[in-house]
């Protein structure tokens, strides 16, 4: 339950080595400032669930050696090309990869949100995505034609980490249309949020703002991180920093370049 706004490092305390951490897709409000703080702290052995895909965030965490297992549907830098540290880590076997498909991750988080052990999903049958997921089961549906259908076990992360436009002093967080952020918070044991700013007053008091608000009841801690999604976009607030992403793609293409990137943009705190 929400207590009070903290320093960024304090707010991230619940993200311990070895925990299962769920983060949102590259355009839904990615907590990049928090990600850099985690790398500086040297978090290890994360089971990272990227709902349902990731870009810079997963690549950075993987490159910095923070990730043991990655569960997602895709990692890429979009128009800036493949995610180089992700690609290298999968090829070298440095991380355990759990390949999924986007709606499977949404459904598995919704299973945890609803307190059910699994959710069914169409599709998948005959794919190698299913073939390599021993944790997914196929049953004959007891309805209609008894056709086969996949059951996905619930994903219950230890921590959900997200970035949003604003929060109030009661722990309520305005997430707008990015409703998968609410599902992440409902599914996770604890939720940590960074925000652009603190909203005066209670977000739940205004019915229009309340419609886009994640209640503080689900929130463990909040820290203010202005432009906290940089260089990724915050929908409706700021665009991606295309120049920086191109620079990242260039530097991260080699281990040496990536180390230099970390030095410049993460350890030096320049952009924290």
């Amino acid at each position, binding site marked *: 339950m929400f207590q009070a706004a903290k320093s960024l490092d304090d707010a991230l305390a619940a993200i311990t080595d070895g925990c299962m951490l769920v983060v949102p897709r590259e355009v839904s409000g990615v907590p990049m400032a928090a990600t850099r703080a985690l790398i500086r702290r040297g978090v290890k052995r994360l089971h990272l669930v990227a709902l349902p895909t990731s870009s810079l965030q997963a690549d950075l965490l993987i490159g910095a050696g923070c990730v043991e297992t990655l569960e997602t*549907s895709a990692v890429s830098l979009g128009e800036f090309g493949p995610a180089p540290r992700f690609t290298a880590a999968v090829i070298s076997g440095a991380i355990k990869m759990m*390949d999924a498909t986007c709606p499977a991750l949404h459904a598995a988080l919704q299973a945890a949100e609803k307190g059910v052990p699994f959710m069914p999903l169409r599709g998948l049958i005959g794919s190698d995505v299913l073939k390599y997921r021993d944790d997914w089961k196929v049953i004959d549906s007891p309805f209609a034609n008894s056709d086969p259908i996949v059951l996905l076990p619930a994903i219950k992360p230890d921590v959900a980490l997200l970035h949003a436009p604003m929060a109030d002093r009661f722990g309520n967080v305005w997430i707008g249309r990015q409703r998968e952020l609410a599902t992440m918070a409902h599914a996770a044991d604890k939720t940590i949020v960074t925000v652009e700013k603190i909203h005066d007053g209670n977000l739940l008091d205004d019915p229009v703002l309340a419609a886009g608000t994640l209640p503080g009841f689900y929130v463990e801690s909040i820290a203010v991180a202005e432009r906290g999604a940089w260089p990724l976009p915050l929908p409706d607030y700021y665009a991606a920093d295309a120049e920086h992403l191109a620079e990242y793609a260039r530097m991260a293409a080699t281990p040496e370049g990536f180390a230099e990137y970390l030095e410049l943009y993460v350890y030096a705190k320049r952009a924290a």
Partner: protein
Amino acid sequence: MNAEQTFRDEELLADVIARLIGDVRHVAVGNASPIPATAALLAREHGKLQGLGRPYVSLLQSRKHNFFTDGARELFDCAGQGRIDVFFLSGGQIDGAGNVNLVSTGGYAHPKVRFPGSFGSAYLYYVVPKVILFRVEHSRRTLVPKVDFISAPGASEKNVYRPGGPIALVTNRCLFSFANGRFRLTSVHPGHTVAEVIENTGFDFDKPATVPETPAPSPATLKLMRETVAPQLAEVYPRFAAQVFGVGQPAFAG
């Protein structure tokens, strides 16, 4: 663009895809797909001219051309409801059975090449009635006899729920249709030949005795694309809109 051509390759491909889209209710376009996005917006403009008010177009990376308000899951829920008629998929590899590979080559445990991942393909390929495969690079590297990893299969057993699947494959050289588990060469783009298509395709496919040339976009279509569609594209694909259509990048590209 060839010397004698009055259009760019991208314009031809978008026109081909717009015709494949046909008269439907809702076309959704995923990430990093500027040519399918051009085609979808073109289909919408054609629909407007005919007074149809359709198709609805959802560009997933767009603020403006995207009505979803229930989070990132809504696209997939919408498809599951049968409310998306056309979607586009690509693949690091595509084989003659319509299987797509977005994961890796070599063994899965020890891959040689790793692609980003399957995205929504392992679901959308099954439930969207018209999936248009789109891969600009037409080579034996991309169009293979058998994919190394099936992100999503081209066809399924009879007892598997599958209202959707591939209807066509568009490349920089030609258009294939897909039915009964096989591709069939429909037309070869201007400046390309059947022999060249055979030479560069790693899988077997059917073809008619005479293979027609892909028709060039009409002047009216080109005008629509350049004057009406291109400015709409610039919000999501500023680089593409600038390179292909010479449309300026807006101040805010988010």
